[in-house]
């Protein structure tokens, strides 16, 4: 009997330690696991390194985690979405470190980390400031940059439907980074709007196989960043 369900977001994130590296799914609000992030704020771990494509908007979700002072460093491709003020303020004040990574390289580094590939050569960013200090090498007459796999202690992602074995389906463009992040952490936590028994999902259509998922939290009506912001919400 395998059952990866956890009773609450609080219990699912209870063992995140200070200084942990946490991957957080989402591209903008699409796929952002708001309830897991809020549980992480409540839990209190600090000095975190967060790997996520953006830095959140308004005063909820990722932005709230940053505003609560829990994040030491962000690894990110685009930290200044419209409506994003928390990260820019912290960054200008020197209170958070930023490792800027091109979006495709970020995706590939996470995939590599999860797939046991130590490093790879990509043409992206060759000849730009984002290759400064990095090893380069010419393949087929073209300069490539050596990039290393990324791994994390925890991954927090949002699914549309999961089963008790941890198999996950996503919702449209909310999929984005989640499938790679699920593979690259010691502990992967999924919040899913629907949770079903193993065997209920079509084995051909599963996007993230259960082997990559450790904990499943049922979150029937997940909040959206934009809706919370329009309502003037502020977390913590």
């Amino acid at each position, binding site marked *: 009997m395998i059952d990866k369900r956890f009773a609450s977001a609080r219990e699912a994130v209870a063992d995140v330690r200070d200084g942990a590296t946490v991957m957080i799914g989402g*591209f*903008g*609000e*699409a*796929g952002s696991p708001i309830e897991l992030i809020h549980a992480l704020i409540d839990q209190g771990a600090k000095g975190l390194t967060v790997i996520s*494509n953006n830095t959140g908007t308004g005063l909820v979700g990722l932005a709230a985690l940053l505003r609560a002072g829990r994040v030491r460093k962000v690894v990110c*491709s*685009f*930290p*200044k*979405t*419209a409506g994003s003020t928390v*990260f*820019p303020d912290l*960054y*200008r004040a020197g209170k958070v470190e*930023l490792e*800027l*990574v*091109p*979006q*495709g*390289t*970020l*995706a*590939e580094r*996470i*995939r590599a980390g999860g797939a046991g590939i130590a490093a790879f050569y*990509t*043409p*992206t*960013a*060759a*000849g*730009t*400031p*984002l290759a400064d200090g990095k090893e380069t090498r010419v393949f087929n007459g073209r300069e490539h940059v050596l990039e290393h796999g990324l791994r994390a202690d925890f991954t927090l992602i949002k699914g549309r439907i999961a089963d008790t074995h941890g198999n996950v389906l*996503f*919702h*449209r*463009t*909310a*999929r*984005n*980074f*989640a*499938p*790679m992040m699920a593979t690259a952490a010691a502990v992967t936590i999924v919040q899913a709007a629907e949770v079903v028994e193993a065997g209920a999902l079509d084995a051909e259509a599963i*996007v993230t196989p259960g082997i990559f998922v450790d904990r499943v939290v049922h979150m029937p009506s997940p909040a*959206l960043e*934009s*809706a919370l912001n329009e309502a003037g919400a502020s977390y913590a």
Partner: protein
Amino acid sequence: MSVAAKTTEAPVGWAREGIAERVAQDIPNGSYVNLGIGIPELVAKFVPAGRTLVYHTENGLLGMGPSPAAGQGDPELINAGKRRVTMMPGAAFFDQATSFGMIRGGHLDLSVLGALQVAANGDLANWSTGADDAIPAVGGAMDLVAGVKWVFVMTTHVTKEGTPKLVERCTYPLTGRGVVTRVYSDLAVIDITPKGFQLVELAPGVTFDFAQERTGAPILRPTH
């Protein structure tokens, strides 16, 4: 080359929609296309009759359709600009590794991007002015220019202050080196060639000298 700041006095040249329409004429039927955020998105409005293009948005959708009506749509069906979109018949969703595999692996035919500067050697700067207080943010731009077969730049010929955006060498941080195929500005269509900027076509009412004066490097006249 030093160039005095000169503004583009209206109504000379193409308006934004005119540039977009001109770009659209050059996209073959069946192309897989990524349109950058902002004015490149206008291109989708001008696809000539009889052509079907498939739009890619790098956050994970091939077969993107137009924006839904205001207040409609799905907040988790968005484009790379984080705005709500729709999907066309034949659309497919996929993760970021697959999406950027399409980009980096040369599967997309065309990327249309904005620019801060384009150099005569094809270098592109479009993600940062390098200002000290700027929050650096790059997104997928470096991947797009590194991987997509043709990179079209759609831009005003000069900045609001009248400074040329087509330059001898970029002074802003690069997005990619030698990556631009062709530039579509309000004044002209210009190819990047081994010899530098090569005029393809002037916008209506624009003379060669008018365009050259507003360009930070020599433009070669058409050879035909």
